[in-house]
C-alpha cells in the first residue's frame, strides 16, 4: 500500500482520497477505519452505495443474518454484522439493546419499564423497540445510571 501525505493550507478539513483497482480485505478494512473515524457507515440500497452518518441513524437491526440501518425515512442494508458495528462505534451514542438490535440514544424519545424486567424504548419516529433484560444494565450505563 502506497501512502502519500500532503500538507496544504487551502484545505479547511483533512481530505482522504483512496485509489484502488480491486476491493481487497485490506481496502475494506481501511474504508471501515476511515468511516469509523468519520462516524459514518457504508450502506447500500437499490444497487447504490451510501455513506450514512451515525447522527442520522435511528437503529440497526439484524434480520435473517442481514444487517439493516434505519434512518428517519429510509432503510438501508449494510455489510457489517451487528457485533462489528458495535465494536467500530463502541465509544459513540449507540448501544446494544437485544440480540438483533442496536439503537442510537440520540434518536431516543423516551423509555418505560415493563413488569418482566424489560424496557420499551420509543424512538423520535415513534417506533417502539424492546430492550431485553440482559442489556438493560449496559443501556442504563450509557446514561451514567
Amino acid at each position, binding site marked *: 500500500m502506497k501512502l502519500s501525505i500532503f500538507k496544504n493550507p487551502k484545505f479547511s478539513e483533512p481530505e482522504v482520497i483512496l485509489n484502488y483497482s480491486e476491493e481487497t480485505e485490506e481496502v475494506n478494512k481501511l474504508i471501515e477505519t476511515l468511516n469509523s473515524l468519520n462516524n459514518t457507515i457504508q450502506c447500500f440500497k437499490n444497487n447504490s452505495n451510501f455513506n450514512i452518518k451515525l447522527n442520522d441513524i435511528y437503529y440497526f437491526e439484524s434480520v435473517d443474518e442481514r444487517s439493516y440501518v434505519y434512518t428517519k425515512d429510509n432503510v438501508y442494508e449494510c455489510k457489517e454484522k451487528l457485533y462489528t458495528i458495535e465494536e467500530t462505534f463502541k465509544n459513540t451514542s449507540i448501544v446494544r439493546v437485544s440480540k438483533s438490535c442496536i439503537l442510537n*440514544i*440520540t434518536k*431516543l*424519545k*423516551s*423509555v*418505560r*419499564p415493563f*413488569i*418482566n*424486567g*424489560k*424496557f420499551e424504548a420509543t424512538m423520535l419516529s415513534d417506533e417502539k423497540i424492546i430492550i*431485553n*433484560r*440482559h442489556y*438493560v*444494565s449496559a443501556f*442504563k450505563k450509557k*446514561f451514567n*445510571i
Partner: protein
Amino acid sequence: MLNRIKHYFTLDCVIFTIMTVVLSIVYYFATWDSTVKTITVEGLFKTFGTMVFSYFTVTTVMAFLFMILEKHINENGYIGHLISMAIVLSCVYGLGGGVFDWFPIFSIWSLYTFIVIVIVYTIVFFTMFHKNVEDSNKINEKLKKMQEKNNE
C-alpha cells in the same frame, strides 16, 4: 465479570435483608414452639446467630444460581420468572428445610413457607421494578434535556 458479581452481591443483600425482616416478623408472632418462650438470652443470641448464618448461606447460593442461569432468566420473559421461582423454592426447601431444619418439610409448615416465599419474592420483584421506574424517569429527564439542547 466484576460488575456481574457486584450486581448479584447487591441482589443477595436485598433478598437477605427482606427475608430476615419477614422471617423475624413470622418468628415473633409464631407460637408453635413453646421453647422460644423459655429460651435464655445466651441461647437466643446463639439461635439468632445460627438463623442469620443459615439465611446468608441460602441467599448466597440463590444469588450464585441466579448468576449461572442469568441468560435463561433474562431471555425467557415470564418463563424466566418461573426459573427464578424454581431457584428460590429449591434453595429454601432443599437447603433451608433439608439442611438447616428451618421447618419440617412434610408438614403444614411447608405451605406456610411457600406463602412466605411468595411474599418475599413479590417484595423483591416490586423493589426491582420500582428501581427500574426510578431509573427510567432519570433517563427520560436526560433525554428531554438532550432534545431541548438539540432544538436550540
